[in-house]
C-alpha cells in the first residue's frame, strides 16, 4: 500500500512494522551503485544488516542533518541514487531541509522517514510530532508536509508487506522522493555506535565513490 491518504496516524505504534522490517526491503532492493545514508536508530539496524562501501553511517551526526548531507551528495553525484534513512525526530529537527531539497530538485534523492513517534536513542520520549504528545491526539503527517513542499513522489506505508512489494518501483521513480514508514516504538534500545573514526570513513567513502559504477 502506498497510502498517501493515510494521514495523521493514530494507530497504536506497537502494531506497526519493526525498524528491521522497514529497512530490510530497502536493503534487498538497493542498487550496487546506490549511496545509503543512515542515522540514529536506522543506522544501528542498517549496520546490523552488513556493510557496503557506499554506506555512509552518519554517526556521529549533526542533529537532523542527514537529509542535508544527502542533498549535497545527490547534487554532486547526479547519476547515482542517494537514499537517506532518517528518523521522525531527526526530520523534525530539520524540516526546512525538505524545502531546500525541492528547491534544488535532485531527481536522484530518496528520503525515507522511519516514523516511530519518539526519540528512540534517548529513551523513547515522544517527539512534538507524536500523536501522544499533541493536544489533538493526531500525529504529524510527514507525507503531507513533503507533498506540500513539492516532492515529486510521496508515499506512506503502514505495513512491511506493502512496502516490500512497492520498494523497487518507489526507488525507480524520478525524485525527489519521500517515503514515510510507520514503525513500531521500542524502548530501551541503545543508540548506534560509531563504526570508526569519521574522518577516516570519509576518505574511504570518497574512494569507494571513485571506484563505483554510477548507473541508477
Amino acid at each position, binding site marked *: 500500500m502506498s497510502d498517501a491518504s493515510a494521514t495523521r496516524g493514530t494507530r497504536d505504534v506497537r502494531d506497526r512494522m519493526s525498524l528491521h522490517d522497514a529497512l530490510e526491503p530497502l536493503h534487498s532492493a538497493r542498487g550496487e551503485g546506490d549511496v545509503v545514508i543512515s542515522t540514529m536508530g536506522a543506522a544501528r539496524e542498517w549496520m546490523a544488516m552488513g556493510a557496503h562501501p557506499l554506506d555512509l553511517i552518519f554517526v*556521529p551526526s*549533526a542533529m537532523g*542533518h542527514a537529509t542535508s548531507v544527502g*542533498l*549535497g551528495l545527490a547534487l554532486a553525484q547526479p547519476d547515482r541514487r542517494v537514499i537517506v534513512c532518517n528518523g521522525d525526530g531527526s526530520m523534525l529537527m530539520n524540516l526546512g531541509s525538505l524545502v531546500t531539497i525541492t528547491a534544488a530538485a535532485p531527481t536522484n534523492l530518496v528520503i525515507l522517514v522511519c516514523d516511530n513517534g519518539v526519540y528512540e536513542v534517548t529513551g523513547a520520549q515522544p517527539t512534538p510530532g507524536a500523536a501522544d504528545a499533541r493536544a489533538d491526539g493526531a500525529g504529524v503527517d510527514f507525507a503531507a508536509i513533503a507533498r506540500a513542499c513539492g516532492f515529486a513522489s510521496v508515499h506512506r506505508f503502514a505495513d512491511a508487506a506493502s512496502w516490500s512489494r512497492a520498494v523497487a518501483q518507489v526507488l525507480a521513480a524520478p525524485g525527489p522522493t519521500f517515503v514515510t514508514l510507520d514503525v513500531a516504538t521500542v524502548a530501551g534500545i541503545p543508540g548506534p555506535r560509531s563504526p570508526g573514526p*569519521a574522518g577516516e570513513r*570519509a576518505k574511504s567513502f570518497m574512494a569507494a565513490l*571513485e571506484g563505483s559504477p554510477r548507473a541508477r
Partner: protein
Amino acid sequence: MFAGEQVASLLEELGVTHVVTVPDSTIGGWYAALERSPSVRVVRVCREGEAWEVAAGLHLGGATPIVMIQCTGLFESGDALRNALHDWRLPIFSIIGYRSYLNQDAIPGDTCLVFTEPVLDAWRIPYRLITAPHQLGAIREHYEACRAAGTAGAALIAEGKA
C-alpha cells in the same frame, strides 16, 4: 565592498563548484552574478546549519563547495559545522559576512562585534579579516593556503549594515 562579478570571477578561478548560502544584504547582492556563472551553482538553504552539511555532502561527492553566510548564521550553525569540520574533518571553506564591522548605524552596539571572532576561534576556523576592497586577493591567498593544508577556513567580510 566587492561587486558580485568580482566574487563570481574569483570563485570560478578557484574552482569552486557550489555556493551553499543564506543571504544577507551584502552577500545577497552577489547572487545575480553568481547565478550567471557557468561553473558555479548557487544552492539556497533555509537555515545556515543546513549549509555546512549540504556542503559536506557535496565535498564527499567530489565537488568543491563553499559556504556563504552572515556571522549571525555562523552562530546558528554550531552543531553542523562542528560535525562537518571536526568530526568528519572536511576542509570546507566559508565566506562570512561580518555585520556592523564598518559602521553601527543600523544596529548600535551590535553584539556581532563582540562574538564573531571569538566564535570562529572557538570552532578553530582559521580566518582572514577582509576590511577593504583591495583585499580581494587576500581571500584567494587564504583559500589556496587552506586547500593546500587540507583545512577549513573562512574569509570574514566586513559589512556596514544588516
